[in-house]
């Protein structure tokens, strides 16, 4: 049975906010996007089918709101990226040296857009693979395999970044 809007709002507010905040340059823009997302969700909640995954639904609205935000602000659409398997991780010199989290932030920027999206939905919006699959229009199993690969890639990039930092100290 479909849960009441307020319950859904309280349950997923944090996930929507973190996703929006990660995607936007500042907290004011994130606030605007989150407000817009829940306003739309409130408008359309009655039409939500009982079997729909509410979190996937909310995050889809959020992704669209972020796209609209960039379209309005910069007349560009953030690239959805072309499905591709990247080669080797980028040169360590391009990564900003620093502590582990700094290296991780830098490494995330060098992932292809589809991988960045998986990271944002999985770790910042705390979605399950099937839910991510619904948002991205892919099977959950594909998302799971992809996640494993990109974690390996991130591990290599972060390790190289930190080794580079150690050498320079």
């Amino acid at each position, binding site marked *: 049975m479909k849960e009441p*809007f*307020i319950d859904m*709002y*309280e349950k997923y*507010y*944090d996930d929507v*906010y*973190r996703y929006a*905040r*990660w995607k936007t*340059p*500042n*907290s*004011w823009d*994130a*606030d*605007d996007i*989150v*407000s*817009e997302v*829940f*306003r739309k969700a*409130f*408008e359309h909640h*009655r039409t939500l089918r009982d079997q729909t995954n509410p979190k996937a639904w909310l995050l889809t609205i959020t992704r669209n709101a972020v796209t609209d935000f960039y379209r309005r*602000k*910069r*007349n560009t659409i953030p690239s959805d990226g072309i499905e591709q398997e990247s080669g080797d991780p980028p040169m360590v010199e391009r990564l900003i040296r620093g502590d*582990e*989290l700094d290296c*991780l*932030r830098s490494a995330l920027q060098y992932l292809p857009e589809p991988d960045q999206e998986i*990271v944002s939905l999985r*770790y*910042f919006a*705390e979605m399950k693979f099937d839910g991510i699959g619904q948002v991205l229009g892919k099977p959950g199993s594909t998302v799971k395999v992809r996640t*494993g690969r990109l*974690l*390996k890639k*991130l*591990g*290599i990039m*972060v*390790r190289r970044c*930190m080794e580079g930092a150690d050498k320079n100290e």
Partner: protein
Amino acid sequence: MNEQQVEHSLIRLKDSIAINRDLQKKLRTEFIALQKRYRKRRLSRWMAVTAAMTAAVIALAIFLNPFAGTAVVSAASLQVSGQGSFVDIGAVRPLGAEEYDGTVYIPVFDKGLYAYDSQGMHRISDRRLDEIRVNPDGTKLAWASEGTIGLYDIRSQTWTVLCEGGGAGNVYYENPSWESKRKLLFVRKEIASGNAHGFETKFSEIFELDLDSGKQRKLADGSFPSYSKKSDSLVYQKDSDSGSRIVIRPLDSGEERILDNGRFPSVSPNGSYVAYVKTDQNQRELKPGASVETNVDNVWIANIDGSSMRAVTSNTPWVQQDEKQWANSVHADPNVPYVLMESGLYSYYNPSWSSDSQSLFVMKGKNAEGSSMSLTRIDLAKNILPAEETVKAFERAAISHDDDFARSLLNHPADYTPNSDRIGFRIAGSGTVSGREYVEAEETWADTAGGPQSTVTPVRYYVDKTERGYRIDSIEKLNGGTAVRQENDDSVVLETDSGNRVLFKPDDIPSNVAPAGKWKLASLAYEPHTNSLLFTVQSLGEDAGVSLIRYDISSHAFQLVDRMDHAGSLKNLVAGNLILSSDGLYAALELSSNNEPPNRSHVLVYDLKKKSGLVPDEQLAETPVESTRIFYMDGRTLHLTMNSEGMNMQFAWDAADKKFVRP
């Protein structure tokens, strides 16, 4: 690093993202109210839901967006929700600024073109520009310099000259502005020598330039053209012997109508409003033959159709001498009247709109000898600020010395006394007593006259709700304040309503907490909610370091928080002022280094929970920062002042998010 470790780090990264709980509560309250409203309606189920949802969407949209709604909000009903000066460019010519999407472009007289954003304030070009205007999509700047106009492409960093003038000739091109992405407006002026002396303008014509075809056509006589897409009208300044006026002329009909007296008109990007500067002139007779004339500038906004207008600044006359004494000192002759001229405390120049049409940027000069020109932002909103937000705005204005804005929030502006010692505040709550609404704040003060001292004072602001929003009617200091200071005998004393008591003396600090060798107490900050004191101890001698120590007043226990021999790239540290965030989780400490010139100062922002610190100005790679100082703390946001290339600017650092945010 294996996958598990990466996942663990990603989770840590997720935890570092701060969530806006205020927004969460605000939206929740609104949704619950809307849901209740739906249930109570007596219309048929479908009509009730449809009507309520329509009303709710509009109400929610208006609630969430200051300028949403099907009708344009009248200028008179817009509220000034904030005002603050954030760049002091020195005692130079005011040239204006342009904002697009969070970046403020600032031409500085005799220095070049700068961009102010979350990366600092960095010089884009050495070119000496007189004016700039950003185009509708933020990709180009139209510029004017010494009678020549051109374009600057922000992405490719290329310069183009469109019309060359000035120099030895009499023709000057000025006031470029954008009609559309591919059409420019500008002014062509011919200057001639004046009859007696100086120069006079023979004519000043407004032209439209099509950037694709290169064709120009004359639109009107005047200056400072600005275009409103909404009404397809040209807005400009027209000068005559009786003064300057703001004129509006639809491009198709050619009929001029006067909007108001004023100068420097600027149309908002959404085409709905015009901002301009207007001088209010008043004359009062003090006695026969002796009168005072005041000419006070204010920034005004008006609806493009002229239906409504209001001043958005609260300038007052600059009274330099006692009027009665002056009147008594002059030997007034009705045939030769004496006039005492008074300007405003401030003068304003070149207002421009933010790209979202919700803020104004204006150059503000203080009319006192040797004072500076500062770039000021004025924020506008449809809804009145709630009482707590009004008090917060007042606190910020008072601390920042935006005294005109602070006064505008008072019922009795004459009672306002500027005070520079407040360094932080926290809203403690609100309520009503004897029918009077109030907001309580805890204000943190620093006294720099004597030794280290930290004072926290509870204050009650009584507020009135007016048409113009909440106004502070009176301010009352409450009992329960606390001061902690170091006395002449080096003991640290706590002063409360019930008297003074010695907390500790230097020898009381355990040897495993105090640094080895000689040291002195440098600064302290009292944290009321944990009833503790955070203080810094400065090691003396070579390779100086700073220790951060906490003293629990209830348990008399000392705890070493950190011992720092370096901060960022700084070594040989010297501690300065110390302040805490209102939740006690972050500290900001001014630091300098014995390895640098004495006036070079930095600020360390320290996370007391994670026991790690960061020097924000080291994040600004492109800004040549000469010195950074603590300005004040607002919640978890630290406001800093930075000196760079002879300019003083304000930045805000979010201690939780570890990034610069809009001040």
